[in-house]
């Protein structure tokens, strides 16, 4: 059964106010940014009412920053906020430091503690033991309304089996919606990653609903020929959206490099109080995927000349031509 949806329908069906969203991907890799843009586009069009989203972790990178900057985020669990060597995330920074456009509540995790919370969620466990979290201020709750230091976030425990080892018990997370970006998925939802996996498969397993935003739809033959390659089986996917350069300006290994100048431009827009202009130019302006590529401009070609392109070579013949897709956003 085809799970392909146009992006606007996927957003309207699966995004609900006061629910939690996890964007998979690493700071500069496979962020489903186009999905975050579409949330804002549908909101501006008056079709989607969202004011208080809860970002349930993943690394807080580009898509999260768009939502934070637009003021539709109430709180977040964060493993990491920023763009690595390309800079700090000034949109999220000013929200936390200055309350612009509003103050968000943040609860910090490490990469591993957040992944363990998702693992516990995927196993339908209430909590899971961890070495990370035994020491330090990750233990400080940030989402509590009772003040930051009144109780501990993790529970410290000595191994009840008697080894004498200490662990921290940490609570599971099950995001209402996990959105993952992938170079390839088939219409049933079988999803393929190329390059580093990060935590994208794990986050999908924790999500109550999962939307895959794929740069390419592939023939169903790919999963039959290479079943080992399926990172997220169709069973775990509710909807598939096709969109070119869906992760831009983050990278999608095998397809395109990160657009570092654009990330810096985005940061500058926040520092110069031009964030609203940024949204007009790069979020609200395009009509369809072709228009979107046109907006990015000649950089599309430059970014697509990635050295990681060799990763997709064995699979290129399974890519469906875009014209053969029945569903495109018009």
């Amino acid at each position: 059964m085809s799970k392909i949806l146009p992006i606007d329908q996927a957003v309207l069906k699966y995004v609900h106010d006061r629910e939690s969203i996890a964007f998979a991907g690493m700071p500069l890799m496979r962020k489903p940014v186009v999905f975050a843009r579409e949330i804002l586009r549908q909101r501006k069009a008056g079709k989607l009412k969202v004011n208080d989203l809860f970002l349930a972790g993943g690394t807080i990178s580009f898509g999260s920053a768009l939502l934070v900057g637009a003021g539709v985020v109430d709180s977040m669990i964060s493993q990491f906020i920023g763009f690595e060597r390309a800079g700090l995330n000034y949109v999220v920074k000013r929200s936390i430091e200055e309350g612009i456009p509003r103050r968000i509540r943040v609860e910090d995790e490490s990469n591993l503690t957040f992944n363990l919370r998702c693992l516990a969620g995927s196993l339908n466990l209430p909590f899971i033991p961890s070495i990370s979290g035994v020491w330090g201020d990750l233990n400080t709750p940030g989402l509590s309304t009772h003040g930051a230091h009144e109780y501990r976030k993790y529970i410290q425990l000595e191994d009840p089996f008697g080894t004498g080892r200490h662990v921290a018990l940490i609570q599971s997370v099950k995001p209402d919606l996990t959105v993952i970006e992938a170079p390839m998925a088939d219409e049933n939802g079988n999803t393929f990653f190329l390059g580093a996996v990060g935590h994208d498969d794990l986050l999908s397993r924790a999500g109550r609903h999962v939307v895959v935003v794929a740069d390419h739809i592939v023939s169903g033959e790919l999963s039959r020929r290479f079943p080992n390659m399926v990172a997220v089986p169709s069973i775990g996917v509710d909807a598939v959206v096709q969109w070119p350069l869906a992760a831009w300006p983050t990278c999608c290994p095998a397809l395109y490099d990160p657009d570092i100048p654009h990330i810096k431009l985005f940061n500058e827009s926040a520092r110069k109080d031009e964030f609203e202009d940024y949204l007009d130019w790069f979020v609200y302006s395009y009509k369809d995927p072709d228009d979107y590529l046109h907006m990015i401009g000649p950089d599309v070609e430059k970014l697509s000349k990635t050295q990681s392109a060799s990763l997709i070579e064995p699979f290129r013949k399974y890519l469906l031509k875009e014209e053969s897709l029945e569903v495109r956003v018009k």
Partner: protein
Amino acid sequence: MMQIGGRTELLKKFTPMEMMVVEASRLIHDNTTVFVGVGLSLLPSQLAQRTRTPGIVQVFESGIIGASATGRAPWGVDDTALQANATAFCDLMSALGWMAMNNKFDLCFLGAAQVDKYGNVNSTVIGDYARPRSRLPGSGGAHDVAAGGQRYVVLVRHDKLHLVERLDYRTSPGFIIGGVSREELGLPGGGPSAIVTDLGSLTPDPKTREFILSRVHPYSTITDIRNNTGWDLKVSDRVEESLPPTDEELNVLRNELDVEGEFTGWKKPTPETSTPRHPPAGVH
């Protein structure tokens, strides 16, 4: 004690940040496994692999194993520049759960906004957690590597704002409160083995686990370093002077890894001063 350091004229040839990256890269032994953190800590292993230690295996928390950057320097641990010649792709849980917690890394590199005398690190906030003066990236994988990694090196700019008596937020464990306090917590990794700064290097006293001055960069002096440290820094009785970067090291850094001078500042003039500096906008 013999007179060491103080040759500030050397700063016409290279910058303190270049010295810091070079000094950190020299801690890497060939044919070992190196965990590479984000930010400036991406550079030492890239430099080492392109010069002295071509046989190292670099691991990145995104799940990349065995990659050496192709062409440009990577912008992050998940950049496509690291995804053209990897020997294995796995996931974050494998890198930080399995490998870090089971001593698979011989050496790890972490950045810091603040570090204290026991090598505990803050990379989360400056100021109060609930109302921070400056919000920084947070842990990422740093807490996990610090808890599990066999040995790790902290890279940090040397001044009283970065080397502090008391952390604003305790992100990643070093030697906790010194002595055997880390062992008592049962953390599997061996803890921090060095703090490499742009003025010198500190290493832990084997007993108290307090970090003491062990190496001075050639343009710096013991007095400079003590004046720029936020605690009463003890000095090893065998302080050595680090060797300036070689032409080859500078060549690789400037022509391959930091072409714009964005991270090591080699294109800008460096102030020759020993007065405390202002904080950079963000450090990680």
